[in-house]
C-alpha cells in the first residue's frame, strides 16, 4: 500500500502562469509551469484526470486537464462561471496559482487500443476530451477510425479551433462539426450534435465512444449511440461534481456508492446507469 498512498496532498504546489490565451467567449487557456523544477519534471498525468486549482485569495476548484500525457505543455482551459474562475480570468502571465493533483482515475488508453474511437463533445465538453484525443492521435497507428463529433451553440463557441486544424492534417482523422445557431459566413452543419452520428456513419463493432457535454446533449447522444447498437460499457464519459478535497474525504462528490474524485471522474455508461442522480 505504501507506494499507493500519497501523503502530501493538502498543500498546493505553486505554479506560474506563463501565458494566457483567449479561446472562446468566457473561456481562457492558462499555460502553467511549476516553480519547483523537481515538481515540474515529475508532474505526470493521465488523460481524464483533474487537478485542484487554487486562485490565491479566492479558493480552490476542480479543473479538468486538457493536455496530453505525452509531450504537451501543462495548461488548463477554464470557463468563467463562479467565484474562483472569475478571479482566475483576471490573472495575467507571471501571476501565481496553486495546484494539487492530478487526481482521478483517467480515461482508458491501453484497453482501447485497436478500436475505432469516437469522441462526441458539446461546447466546452471538448476540454476534458482533448487530452485523450491528442494522446490517441500521437499513437495513431494503434487505433482504427478516429472520429470527433463536435457541437456548439454558435460558430464562435467552438473550442480549440487551432488544434482541430492541426489534427485534420493527420491521416485518417475525421471531424464533423455542427452549430445550434448559424451566424453569417457559417457554411457547415446546423443542428444538434447527435445529427452527426448518422452523417459520420459511426461504426458500432469494435468501437468505443467518449461523450462529454451538457446533460441534455449527453442523454440524447447516448440514446442515439445505443440505438445504433453500441453497448453501454463501450460508452465512456467524465462527470463533474462540486469538490473540496480531491482525495475522497470531503464527500461532496458522492454519487451512489462512488466518489467522483477517486472512483471517477471517468465512468462507463454501464456504471452511470446504476448510480442514479448522475445528471
Amino acid at each position, binding site marked *: 500500500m505504501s507506494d499507493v*498512498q500519497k501523503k*502530501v496532498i493538502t498543500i498546493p504546489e505553486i505554479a506560474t502562469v506563463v501565458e494566457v490565451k483567449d479561446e472562446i467567449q468566457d473561456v481562457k487557456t492558462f499555460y502553467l509551469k511549476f516553480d519547483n523544477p523537481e515538481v515540474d519534471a515529475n508532474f505526470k498525468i493521465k488523460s481524464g484526470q483533474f487537478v485542484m486549482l487554487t486562485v490565491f*485569495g479566492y*479558493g480552490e476548484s476542480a479543473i479538468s486537464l486538457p493536455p496530453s500525457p505525452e509531450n504537451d505543455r501543462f495548461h488548463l482551459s477554464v470557463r468563467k462561471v463562479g467565484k474562483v474562475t472569475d478571479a482566475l480570468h483576471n490573472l495575467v502571465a507571471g501571476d501565481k496559482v496553486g495546484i494539487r493533483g492530478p487526481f482521478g482515475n483517467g480515461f482508458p488508453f491501453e484497453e482501447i487500443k485497436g478500436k475505432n474511437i469516437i469522441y462526441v463533445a458539446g461546447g466546452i465538453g471538448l476540454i476534458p476530451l482533448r487530452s485523450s484525443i491528442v494522446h490517441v492521435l500521437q499513437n495513431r497507428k494503434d487505433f482504427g477510425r478516429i472520429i470527433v463529433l463536435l457541437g456548439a451553440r454558435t460558430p464562435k463557441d467552438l473550442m480549440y479551433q487551432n488544434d482541430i486544424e492541426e489534427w485534420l492534417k493527420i491521416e485518417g482523422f475525421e471531424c464533423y462539426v455542427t452549430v445550434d445557431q448559424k451566424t453569417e459566413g457559417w457554411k457547415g452543419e446546423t443542428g444538434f450534435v447527435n445529427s452527426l452520428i448518422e452523417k459520420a456513419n459511426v461504426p458500432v463493432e469494435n468501437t468505443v465512444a467518449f461523450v462529454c457535454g451538457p446533460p441534455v446533449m449527453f442523454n440524447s447522444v447516448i440514446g442515439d449511440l445505443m440505438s445504433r447498437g453500441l453497448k453501454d460499457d463501450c460508452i465512456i464519459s467524465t462527470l463533474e461534481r462540486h469538490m473540496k*478535497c480531491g*482525495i475522497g474525504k470531503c464527500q*461532496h462528490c*458522492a454519487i451512489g456508492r462512488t466518489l467522483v474524485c477517486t472512483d471517477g471522474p471517468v465512468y462507463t455508461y454501464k456504471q452511470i446507469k446504476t448510480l442514479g*442522480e448522475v445528471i
Partner: protein
Amino acid sequence: MYLIEKNNVMKLAEELAKSYSLYGPVVDKDTKQVFFNKVSSASEISLTAEIPSIPPKTVVFPQIERILKYNYDKDAKKVEMEPDFDSSSKALFGIRPCDLTGIVVLDRFFMGLEFVDEVYLEHRKRMFIVTNTCTVPFKQCFCVCTDSGPSADEGYDLNLTDLGDVYLVETGSDKGRAFAEKMGLKASGPEHTLEKKNAVDKSISLFEKLATDNKAWISRVMNRVTTGFIKEEVWEHIGKQCFECGACTFVCPTCSCFNIEDHNKFNGSTDRLRTWDSCSFEGYTKMAGDHNPRHPVEDRRNKRFFCKLSYSQSKKYLRPGCVGCGRCQWVCPGDIGLPNVVTYIRREITE
C-alpha cells in the same frame, strides 16, 4: 489487567495531563449539559457524566480549523505558504465506547483508504485514549444494536470499568501497558474479570429494555438500504420531515463531510479553513453555474442513511456507519433520527 481504587482513578488523568493536553467529559455547572472539552485540571472531568452532547470527534476533527495560511503578494508575484496542522499530544480521558467506535470509524476512513488525510493524521498520531465502560445506559442509547458498546473491544490504550469500589483497568496497547506499569497499578485477579463480565451483561440487559424496538432490525434495514429495496415514498416521507438544519450530521460521531474555504484577513494573508459540512444542506452539491445534481430534500436524506447503513459504505469503515449513540434522535427537530428511520423502514417491510 490492573485495578485502581475509585478515589485514586483521577491520578491517572493527572499523570496524563503532565505529557498530554487533557480532554474529558465535563458537566456544565449551570445547564448540567455534558461536553467533551479540553480541561486545565483533571478534577474537572466527571467519569459518571452522561455521554457528551457533542461527540469527542471534535478533538480529531474540529468544527473549524485552519489547515494552511498563505500570503500572496500580487505585485512581487510571491507566495508564502505555511501548513498549519495541530500536532499536539492529546489524551482523551473517559470517552464512551460508542464515541471511541466513532473515532475508529474516522481512523479507517481518513487513514485507511487510498489517500491518507494528513490533517487528521497529525491530530491522531500522538493520542492516548482512556475509555469508560457504560455500566448503565443513557436515555437514547442503542449501541447494543450497532455492535459498539456498552464496553469497548479495541482502539483504546486503557479501558476503565466501574466495579463498585474499584475500577478495572484493561490495557489495549503497549503504550497503555507501559503507562499502567509506570503508575504502579496492582494486578487484578480472575474474579475481577468475571465481575466485569457480569457488569457488562447487566448493562446489556438494561440496554435491551431501552432498545427493543430497533434491535435486530438494524441489520435487516442495512440489507434493505444496500439493495435499494426501499420504496421512494418512504424516503419522501422522511424527507418531508427534514428541516435541513444539519444537526444530525454535526452531532454524529462518524459524520466527517467537510468544506474548505479561503478566508481573507485584513492583514492581507489568507487562512484556508476546513469546516464541518452537512449533506442535508441544499448547497452541498451545488456546482458553479448553479447546476445541482442532488436537489430534492429526500435525495439528501436518503444519502445520509445510505452512508450510515449501506454495506458499500460499511466496507470503508469495516463496520456499520452508525455507532448507536442516539444523538441524532435527541437533536432532530423533525423526529427523523436514525432509530426512527429504522422504524419507518421496518414498518414498510412489515406492512
